[in-house]
């Protein structure tokens, strides 16, 4: 049996790096320290369902093809399109993302990540007002107040609280849990709310009003007896905790970014945190979902200057969220081919966008069957980053970690990076030939 220690879990943005994986004869026996979600990801390696060769649509079904043929098809699809969309990237390593960006630039397409359907509003808000934040170790060592707003880590980031916020002992928080207070703000009493010291139930869609109430009180204004379904005294009580803590932290999830108001909610929440810095140290952080959605925004930003929704059709990077972002481009029918890598837009895009996606030429690189692979014209299976391929990923606090390779991919499978490189070379070959 091989024992791999310090393995990184390539599942959620918590990016736990203390997993111990036992592998025997190419099978994962155990993934110690991983939560239920992480464990499931490692154990899924043992399932028999993986495709090993590319499949191309023919009539109602798919037929097998070679990697060379698949690569050429993607290359031609991207070159034939006026404005192809290269979408996804949240579940692959930065080195692959980097090749993907170069490919988008080479074919003059749009490159975008799932930020536009999860934390894109957070980025817009950051670009409006800024972003006072810290790394997760700061939270562990210093925080005496943690707020989770529109986020249910017990389910979506199961080890977040045990590693960084509610439970661990830190340098200045030697007693761990006893030294810390947790507030949960959500539209329903989640399991996370169940272990919080304080729970504020905000009425659905009214997050903005509640943030405003905090800010109004903080800046010496007055509020009605109830705001957004929360009693004034509870708002005041929570605010008092925020003002008097030594180190406060606001973690926010899609409950806040995707509720009505979207980036205005986050704008306002960031402004609240900035205001609180007049009283004490206060910071915030988005609870990023996929393990490397942050990495994509890092790579794209240092290479192009912009974090998502970058349009290369004019030969230089252009960024205009709402115009150069996937959902809008698809819904308005403004792209004429889609290439998906490491994502499943068919499962989480609005209906109109998915309908257009189904109409235009499409290809996907993806280890597993997903709703998107059912819709597309060509699917190329790949090795699984973080288990079969090493590379860089960025945790939700932007800390870069090298995910490990703990087993070989099945024979014949390439990594996303290798496949993308082949496509890029083929594109250049075709361009030069023409």
């Amino acid at each position, binding site marked *: 049996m091989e024992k791999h*220690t*310090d393995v*990184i879990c390539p599942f959620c943005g918590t990016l736990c*790096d*203390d997993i111990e994986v036992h592998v025997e004869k190419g099978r994962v026996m155990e993934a110690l320290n991983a939560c239920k979600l992480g464990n499931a990801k490692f154990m899924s390696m043992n399932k028999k369902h993986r495709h090993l060769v590319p499949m191309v649509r023919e009539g109602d079904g798919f037929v097998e093809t070679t990697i060379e043929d698949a690569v050429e098809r993607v290359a031609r699809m991207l070159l034939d399109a006026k404005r192809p969309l290269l979408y996804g990237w949240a579940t692959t390593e*930065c080195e692959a993302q980097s090749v993907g960006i*170069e490919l988008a*630039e080479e074919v003059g397409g749009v490159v975008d990540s799932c930020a536009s359907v999860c934390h894109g509003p957070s*980025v817009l808000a*950051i*670009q*409006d*007002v*800024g*972003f*006072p*934040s*810290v*790394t*997760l*170790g*700061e939270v*562990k*060592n*210093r925080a005496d107040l943690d707020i989770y707003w529109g986020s249910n880590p017990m389910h979506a980031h199961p080890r977040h609280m045990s590693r960084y916020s509610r439970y661990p*002992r*830190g*340098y*200045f928080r030697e007693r761990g849990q006893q030294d810390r207070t947790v507030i949960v703000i959500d539209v329903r009493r989640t399991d996370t709310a169940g272990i919080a010291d304080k729970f504020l139930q905000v009425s659905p869609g009214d997050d903005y009003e509640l943030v405003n109430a905090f800010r109004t009180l903080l800046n010496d204004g007055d509020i009605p007896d109830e705001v957004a379904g929360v009693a004034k005294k509870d708002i005041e009580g929570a605010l008092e905790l925020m003002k008097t803590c*030594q*180190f406060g932290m606001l973690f926010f999830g899609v409950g806040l970014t995707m509720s009505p108001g979207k980036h205005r909610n986050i704008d306002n929440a960031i402004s609240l945190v*900035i205001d609180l*810095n007049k009283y*004490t*140290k206060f*910071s915030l952080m988005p609870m990023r979902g996929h393990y490397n959605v942050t990495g994509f*925004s*890092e*790579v794209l*930003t*240092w*290479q*192009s*200057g*912009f*974090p998502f929704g970058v349009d290369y059709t*004019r*030969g*230089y*990077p*252009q*960024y205009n969220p709402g115009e150069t972002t996937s959902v809008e481009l698809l819904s308005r029918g403004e792209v004429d081919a889609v290439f998906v890598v490491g994502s499943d837009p068919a499962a989480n895009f609005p209906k109109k966008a998915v309908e257009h996606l189904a109409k235009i030429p499409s290809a996907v690189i993806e280890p597993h069957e997903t709703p998107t692979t059912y819709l597309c014209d060509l699917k190329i299976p790949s090795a699984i980053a973080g288990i079969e391929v*090493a590379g*860089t990923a*960025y945790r939700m606090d*932007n*800390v*870069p*970690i*090298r995910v490990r390779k703990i087993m070989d991919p099945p024979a014949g499978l390439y990594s996303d990076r290798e496949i993308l490189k082949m496509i890029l070379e083929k594109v250049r070959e075709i361009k030069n030939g023409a």
Partner: protein
Amino acid sequence: MELEIKNGTVYDPLNKVNGDRMDILIKDGMIVKKLHGKHEVIDASGKLVMPGGVEIHSHFAGGKETAGRLLRPEDGARTVYPKRNGLRSGSGYSMPSSFTAGYLYAQMGYTMCNTPAMPPLFARHTHEELGDVPIVDKSAYPTFDGNWFVMRYLKEDDPDKLAACVAWFLRATKGLVIKLVNPGGTENWGWGKNAVGIDDPVIGFDVTPGEIIKGLAEVNERLKLPHSIHLHPNNLGKPGNIETTIETLDLGKSIKTDKGRQSIYLTHAQFHSFGGDSWKNFESKADELAKYINSCDHVVCDTGNVTLDETTTMTSDGPMEYFLHNLTHLKWVNKDVELETAPGITPFIYSRKNPVHSVQWAIGLELALLIDDPFKVLLATDHPNGGPFTRYPRIIAWLMSEPYRRYYLEERVHKGAQKGSSLATLDREYTFSDIATVTRAGQAKALGLSELKGHLGVGAHGDVAIYDINPSEIDPSNDFKAVEKGFAKTVYTIKDGEIVVRDGEIVAAPQGRTYWANPVVDHELDREMLKDVEQYFKKYYSVNLANYPVQKEYLERGREIQIDARDVK
């Protein structure tokens, strides 16, 4: 591959070549005495030839640098660089994207760039990004200002483990230089506090900024590092901070070095040369700092020129960035890093019409003109903090031309600059040799890399910049516009003997080297120290020790500078 650069007018201060007409020969990437085979010839008659430029302090790549780009799409939209000649596209006025930064530096004749504030925990990011900065050689300076191990060993008075631990961090982060940013202040910022003087307490650690600076300056020499400590002192950007600056520099007086260089490198001196006690009576104290530096030999500084542009400030000085944000109310990013440091970012609009900004502009130039020896005052804007590095040609022209400065003082900037500084009284004009010193030779020497960099003698890297300026015809004092234009783009930039820029256009974009220091201390000591590191990692870091050091995959052309420091035990 052999190359002959014929008949140029050469300025190579480290070899005392001062405008001589001579040929430079390059073989296999190095400067040589003789060529044997068939070789390419560049006719440099009537052209200015210098060693490749060396950037000693520029925030062109790293975690906060990318956060700064993300914060400001308006800066990206302001200047775009379309894809051409098979190169990569990019964007950014004050903060160009990675590929573009490499191209722009090479086009100005620079062949080495060092990014000066790398939080160790983000080293992997920095190196990943450096890999996307083409052409130039590179290095990164890890920050130690709020390092918990450093403070612990200082408190325990264990200089040996302190040295071993610094060596470990350099190795783990693949860093070249000990960088300090607002020592102690960044740790206090964890509680929203700061440390403005060298005797202020660091909360929870029982040490002072002064002890951190002195302790690490001593460690630096025990580890025989090429460069000295690279210091951004406490109290940056506050009226009256000259006192703190001088007190800080005094700490280096007693530090012995057998390297023949400074024991303290003071970066962006402009931001640390303020007088007055409010913005109302704010004034330049460049004269005081210059007097100090002229009268000692343990300090080298860079100017930190303000170029009067709209820019994006980004430093590891979190409390200072918050202070700036409160002045301007512009958007603000903070990025405290566990056990290490606390970077921050906020945009800043320097205005010609603003008296304070105008005095700041004057201070950067005063320092360059008042410090006698150009090897002690190097040219840098602390890119992008004082302004983008693309402004270097203009600063060069200011330094070479009193009329150009006078025009700015009288017509362009706020009158306050005449009252608040001595610039109007300074008639010194830099020579081409001075310019070669403050843009390459001095940097190479201060960095301790002058065997390979910053000169054109035999054994140096074949890095050469050829400018379309004819020193025997031009009068820089009056033709300042031609000087500015001439330094903006080379006719040729040669990197390791390869032509990378021709007529101002990039023609090749090879990967540069990344230098890092590996001082090897006594093995037993190293083991003992590592036990502490292991324990701290388990308890306080959010990543495991095994996942912390930067793997070799991140340095495509890594160059380890191994140093025998086994006498540290």
